[in-house]
C-alpha cells in the first residue's frame, strides 16, 4: 500500500474512513512514515509562505493604468475619497518631513555655533582667530584611525569574499546595481585574485566555498535580515553550491542549464531604480558672484536622496581687525573651493504637474576654511526622463571657521541634472 499517497489524500481531506484508520495505525508504528507526513506538510506550508511573498508592484500598476489611459496608480480613482479628507491631513506627511528637516538644520546651526559644545576653548573669538575645534577634531581622528586600522587588517580569503558578497546584498537592498567606488575602496586588495567586484562573485564557481565554510553564517544571517531580493540571492548561491560540488550525474550540460537560470537577477523596474545617481551642475547667482558646482545625487528612495556637491564659490571676505575682532564690512571676494554634503527631499505628492516637483535640501560642508550649513528649496523640472533642471533659492551660513571668509548669504541657483541610466 502506498502510504505516502494515503498521507497526501488525508491532508487533502479526501481519505476514506477505513483507510484513515489503517494510515494512523501505520503512522504509530513507522517513524519513516511520520517523517513523510512532516515532509508533505512542509512542502505545502513552504508554498503558502512563498505565495504571500508575491505581490504586484507599483511599477506594474502604473504600467497597466497608463496603457489604459488612466492616471497612474488610480490616483484619480482615489481622488474622490481623498477629496473629503482635509488638506492638512493629506499634506501632513510632506509637511512633517519639511518641518523635521528645517528643525534639523536649525538644530545643527545652533549647535555648531555654540562654542561651549564644539570648542574646548569656549571662546568664540579664539575660534575665529583660528583655534582648532579640539573635541570634534580628536573624535574624527580617532574614528579615522580605527577605520584605517580595520581596513588594513589582513583578512582570510573566504572572509574577503563574504565581505564582497555583503556589499552586493547591501546594494540590492538599496536597489543599486553597481557597487560605488567608495565601497570598493573599503575592501582590501586581493593580490592573488581578481578585483573584489561584488557582482563578479555571483558568476564565480569558487563562490561555492562561501556557503560551505564558516563564513556561510554571515551570508545566511545577512539574508535572514534583509528583504526577499537578498534572500533569493542567498538561496541561489546555496543551489549553486550544491551543483558545483556535486554535479548532477547526467551531464555537465544540464548543470550549465540550471545554474544561470537560478542566478538571473530581476531587472530594475524603472530608470530611477536602475541606477539612482544623478550628475549635475549648478550655478549660484548671488550678490556679486556667480559660482559653478558639480554634484552627485544618490537616491535612497524615490523621494529622498543624499549627495555631494563641490566647486568654485565666491566668498565675501571679512577683514580681521588688529585685535582679532571681526569687522562686518565686506572687503572684496575670493574664489574658494566649496563642498557640501546634503540631503534632499522631493515632494512627489505635491507635484504641480507631472514634470514640476518641489524639493527642499539641507546640507553642511566647507567654503574655503570655513564650515557652513545650507538650506535650499525650489522646483525640479523633469524635461526629459534623463534630464531635469532646477530653480532654487538657498541660504548659506558660516558656522565653523578656521578663517571666516563670508557672511551669511542668500542666493538663487539654476542647475541641470543628468540621470545616469543603468543600461
Amino acid at each position: 500500500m502506498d502510504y505516502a499517497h494515503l498521507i497526501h489524500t488525508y491532508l487533502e481531506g479526501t481519505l476514506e474512513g477505513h483507510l484513515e484508520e489503517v494510515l494512523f495505525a501505520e503512522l504509530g508504528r513507522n517513524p519513516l512514515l511520520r517523517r513523510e507526513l512532516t515532509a508533505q506538510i512542509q512542502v505545502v506550508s513552504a508554498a503558502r509562505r512563498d505565495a504571500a511573498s508575491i505581490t504586484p508592484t507599483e511599477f506594474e500598476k502604473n504600467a497597466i493604468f497608463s496603457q489604459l489611459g488612466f492616471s497612474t496608480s488610480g490616483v484619480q480613482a482615489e481622488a474622490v475619497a481623498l477629496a473629503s479628507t482635509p488638506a492638512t491631513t493629506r499634506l501632513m506627511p510632506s509637511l512633517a518631513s519639511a518641518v523635521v528637516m528645517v528643525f534639523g538644520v536649525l538644530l545643527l546651526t545652533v549647535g555648531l555655533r555654540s562654542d561651549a559644545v564644539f570648542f574646548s576653548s569656549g571662546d568664540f573669538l579664539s575660534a575665529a582667530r583660528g583655534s582648532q575645534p579640539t573635541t570634534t577634531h580628536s573624535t574624527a581622528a580617532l574614528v579615522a584611525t580605527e577605520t584605517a586600522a580595520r581596513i588594513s587588517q589582513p583578512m582570510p580569503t573566504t572572509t574577503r569574499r563574504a565581505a564582497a558578497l555583503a556589499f552586493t546584498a547591501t546594494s540590492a537592498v538599496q536597489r543599486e546595481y553597481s557597487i560605488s567606488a567608495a565601497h570598493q575602496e573599503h575592501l582590501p586588495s586581493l593580490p592573488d585574485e581578481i578585483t573584489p567586484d561584488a557582482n563578479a562573485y555571483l558568476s564565480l564557481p569558487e563562490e561555492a566555498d562561501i556557503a560551505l565554510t564558516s563564513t556561510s553564517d554571515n551570508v545566511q544571517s545577512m539574508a535572514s535580515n534583509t528583504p526577499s531580493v537578498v534572500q533569493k540571492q542567498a538561496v541561489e548561491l546555496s543551489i549553486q553550491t550544491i551543483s558545483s560540488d556535486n554535479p548532477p550525474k547526467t551531464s555537465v550540460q544540464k548543470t550549465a542549464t540550471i545554474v544561470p537560470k537560478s542566478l538571473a537577477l530581476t531587472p530594475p523596474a524603472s530608470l530611477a531604480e536602475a541606477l539612482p545617481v544623478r550628475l549635475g551642475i549648478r550655478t549660484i547667482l548671488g550678490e556679486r558672484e556667480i559660482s559653478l558646482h558639480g554634484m552627485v545625487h544618490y537616491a535612497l528612495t524615490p523621494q529622498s536622496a543624499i549627495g555631494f556637491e563641490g566647486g568654485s564659490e565666491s566668498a565675501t571676505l571679512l577683514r580681521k581687525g588688529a585685535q582679532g575682532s571681526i569687522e562686518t564690512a565686506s572687503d572684496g571676494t575670493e574664489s574658494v573651493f566649496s563642498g557640501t554634503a546634503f540631503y534632499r527631499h522631493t515632494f512627489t505628492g505635491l507635484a504641480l504637474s507631472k514634470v514640476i516637483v518641489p524639493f527642499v535640501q539641507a546640507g553642511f560642508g566647507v567654503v574655503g576654511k570655513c564650515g557652513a550649513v545650507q538650506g535650499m528649496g525650489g522646483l525640479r523640472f523633469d524635461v526629459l526622463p534623463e534630464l531635469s533642471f532646477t530653480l532654487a533659492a538657498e541660504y548659506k551660513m558660516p558656522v565653523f571657521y578656521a578663517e571666516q571668509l563670508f557672511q551669511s548669504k542668500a542666493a538663487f541657483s539654476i542647475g541641470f541634472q543628468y540621470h545616469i541610466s543603468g543600461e
Partner: protein
Amino acid sequence: MPQQRYETLTDAALMQEFHASKANHEPIFNEIYRRYGQRIKLYAVRVLGSEDDGSDVFQETFVRFYHVALREPQIENIGGYLMRIARNSCLNHKRNAKSTITIDDFEIAVPDVPHYEREELLNLIALALEYLDFDYREAFVLRFYQDCSYEEIAQLTGASIATVTNRIWRAKNKLKTILAPYLAEIAELNG
C-alpha cells in the same frame, strides 16, 4: 461613487456600474485590480517560473480584460475571467519558450547539507517549481498557492478531476524529492 462603495459590490454589480458610465471605468478597474491583482500575479509568476515573463503576462492580462470588459455586457465571475486570460497568455509564453528539463532528468546528491536558515529553506520551493512540467506546476500552484478546489482547477484547465488529482499528487511528490535534504533540515529545526 466613493471607492469604498465599490469594495462591497459583487463582480456582477461591479460590471453593471462599469457599463453605466465611462466615468466609472477607472475607479472600478482600480477595484478589480485590488481584488485580483495579487492572485493573477502569483499565478503568472509561479506558473511561468520567471518574474519577468510573469510580470508581462500579469500586465497583459489586465489590459486585455479591460478591452474585453468594454465589449462584454455581463461578466459574472471576474476572477475566473482574468484567470482564463492569464492562462492563455501563459500558454502562449510557454509555446515560445525553450523547453525546460524535468525532475526526472537530473539528480541532486547532497552528502553534507549545511545548516540553512528556515526562511531560505522555505524559499527554495520557488526554484524547485521551475523544474516541474507546466501541467504539474500549474496544478500545484492553483491548489496550494491559490487554494483552488479540484473542481475549479479542472474547470480552468479543461482536464478531468481525476487528471487534476493525479497532477497535484505527482507535483507535490516531485517537489518533495527535490527538497528532501532541506526538508529534513527543517524538520530538525522544528525539533
